[in-house]
């Protein structure tokens, strides 16, 4: 596959300033703008921790509302092949030239509340039932595009590995430093798949090779690419963006 594979992996030094910019916790601290000055009248602008705390509490409330609104039987709209967006937009927390090649001897590791924790190789995943979809990928930034993926329904995979389906979270760890987590109900929704193919071809590195999550009932940042491990857990696992303040449930 193209030059992507030959490009050097990114050193931390190269992306550190960008990461520092993105890793702003306490996202309201030190923010003086027309909006915040106007809307926070009466609040002490030197200590925004109270406001931050309130916003985070409402975010958790929103998550409960979203979980209640989530209908496990409602399917995301599917589209004809003619509706697929070309060119498909690359998106990650880094630029496209920083895409990581697939590590040699790649396996998918499993941990947590599963009975069979042996690692999975690609041919074994390919031998499981496959399912395709043409669905809309909606980014938290507001833009959206229609793409085509196929792979193993996550519900099929979780049952196959003897996962505790009453556990609360499924956590995804990626070899590009990314991570995310979803609720079990969304994990078992039939359109949630471990995708192997994009546009009927094996995933290229920039689309998440060799294995990615594709979940059309959540915002795009939940569809983690370049997977290396899955954990089933009852302990809130967070994720790359969730830890910085993106709303965790992120359902659409």
């Amino acid at each position, binding site marked *: 596959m193209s030059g992507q594979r030959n490009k050097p992996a990114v050193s931390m030094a190269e992306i550190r300033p960008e990461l520092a910019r993105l890793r*702003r916790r306490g*996202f*309201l601290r030190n*923010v003086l*703008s*027309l*909006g*915040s000055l*106007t*809307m926070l009248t009466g609040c002490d602008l030197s200590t925004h921790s109270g406001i931050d705390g*309130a*916003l*985070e509490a*409402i*975010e958790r409330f*929103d998550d409960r509302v*979203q979980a209640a*609104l*989530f*209908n496990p039987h*409602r*399917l*995301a*709209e599917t589209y004809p092949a003619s509706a697929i967006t070309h060119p498909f937009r690359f998106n990650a927390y880094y630029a496209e030239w920083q895409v990581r090649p697939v590590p040699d001897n790649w396996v998918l590791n499993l941990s947590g509340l599963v009975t069979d924790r042996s690692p999975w190789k690609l041919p074994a995943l390919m031998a499981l039932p496959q399912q395709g979809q043409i669905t*809309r990928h*909606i*980014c*938290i*930034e*507001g*833009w*959206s595009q229609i793409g085509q993926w196929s792979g193993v329904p996550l519900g099929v995979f979780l049952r196959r590995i003897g996962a505790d389906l009453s556990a609360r979270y499924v956590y995804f760890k990626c070899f590009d430093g990314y991570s995310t987590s979803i609720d079990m109900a969304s994990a078992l929704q039939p359109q949630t798949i471990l995708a192997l193919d994009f546009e009927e071809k094996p995933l290229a590195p920039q689309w998440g090779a060799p294995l990615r999550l594709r979940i*059309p*009932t959540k915002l795009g940042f939940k569809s983690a690419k370049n997977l290396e491990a899955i954990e089933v857990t009852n302990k809130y696992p967070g994720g790359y*963006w969730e830890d*910085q*303040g*993106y*709303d965790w449930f992120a*359902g*659409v």
Partner: protein
Amino acid sequence: MDRHKTRPAHPVAIRIMHWIGVYAMGCMIFSGWEIYNASPSLPFMFPAWTGLGGWLGGALAWHLSAMWLLFADGIAYLIYGFASGHFRRDLKPPRPAEVGHDLVAALRARLKHRMGHYNAVQRVLYAGIIVVIMLQVMTGLAIWKPVQFGWLAGLFGGYPIARGIHLTGMFCIVAFVLVHVAMVAIHPSTLKSMIVSVPTEKEEAHERPA
């Protein structure tokens, strides 16, 4: 007995809901600008200093928090508006001729403002902005939950179009606010009437020749 007949230009409930609405809508607009800036769908961006939230995650936290306040305020206002007779009394749809007459008079600065009474143009604009805000809540729900509320997103032509309508609604609200604030600047006493109790002006006072 006569004292009971002089109602305030704006009842206290309206005044409270108005200012809660100003705060909630302000949060929605300024955080909305920050969200828009994350992926502008038109060839311009809002100046960074106008945004609320500091970054996309913060802006969304504000937007999805203030929406509850705006929703509660809006529902309370609608219930109050119907139950108290406020809509029937003050926002009665005017005849087109009335609107034309009052608009021309207003533009020629000949339209007298009577405290507690809305002219035809005001009635159109106030009723219109209520409809726009209700549409804004519906398109907001459609783009927040385009799968779970797929029928609602479908009603607005799908996610991308609903998002465009949501942006358009914001422009309508901002345009309304600019006109509204300009009118208040021309008639500063109306600002006082939205803060403290100011008696309604008697209708006859103006209809009798001086």
